[in-house]
């Protein structure tokens, strides 16, 4: 296998993390909706926490994306 091919495979493997973070973000919003439908009165007060959870789980996907980009464009 050439170095370039190995690089592309590595970047593709790193991109798996982005999809896994999508599971996390979906879980955050799904659980929020589930709770919000049970008690709509309390939902508005929890929006700050919703976005904190979203930010925390999204960050890991973004880091996976950064790793893929670093492999593609920075590593020579």
């Amino acid at each position, binding site marked *: 296998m050439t170095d370039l091919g190995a690089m592309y495979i590595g970047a593709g493997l790193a991109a798996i993390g982005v999809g896994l973070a999508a599971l996390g973000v979906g879980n955050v919003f799904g659980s929020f909706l589930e709770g919000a439908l049970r008690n709509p009165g309390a939902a508005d007060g929890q929006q*700050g926490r919703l*976005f*904190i959870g*979203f*930010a925390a789980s*999204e*960050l890991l996907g*973004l*880091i996976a*994306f*950064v790793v893929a*980009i670093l492999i593609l*464009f920075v590593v020579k």
Partner: protein
Amino acid sequence: MSAGKIDPMEQFKVEPVLGGHLNLFGYDVSFTNSALFMVVVFMLLAVFMAGGLKRQLVPGRWQVAAEDAVSFIDNMVTVNIGSGGKKFAPYIFSLFFFILFANLVGVLPLAILPGLHTFAVTSHITVTAVLAFLSFGIVLVVGFATHGLKFFSLFVPHGAPAWLMPVIIPVEFVSFMVRPFSLGLRLFVAMTAGHILLEVFGSFVVQGLNAGGPLGGVVSLLSFAMIVGVSALELLVCAIQAYVFALLTSLYLHDAVHLH
């Protein structure tokens, strides 16, 4: 990259707009497209606020928009920082609206006019990291000014057993020191990823048209529909990222003001 494709990274290039490079004491201080769009964002924000500050008894639409913007930030600050949070409202306001306007100006589809190419200021980690370290610096200054050395008790959670301290204090310390990096990285990567995605689908449209034939046309059409959809998603991401940046900054300020 291979085979003469459209380079999706070219759009992030920072280059001087007026004339050539300007050197001062060995540093390149030329007026770049990044600086130009920061000025554009500042002007838009100044016009928006100046138009809303008419103080009429019966407010017009513009004044209501400006008042809503102010009360939105005011509410965020009161809820998340608590007592003593009002004095940070101007900073959070500037932060939120600078990021929001910079994000929105960045996704304006003005590139269909030749020679006009909007530049997303927040798609550079140099810009977002400065904003993040500014927030982190304010947290440190406020924390040490109000609590002195007691500020270090931030690393000791309430109710944790004493034998856990050797583990939990380093963990809390690392999670505190990582804050500015995660804050800056999140905004930068979210904007960069969106712009790369738009550029990639844009290149699919061009290459589909160049290839010709019914298949090329179908690829172009589907890619164009995808661009429209992704652009709508990008508008949401612009607002959410600005909101998250302001929200996390106010939460960190809460730690500095109240210690837990």
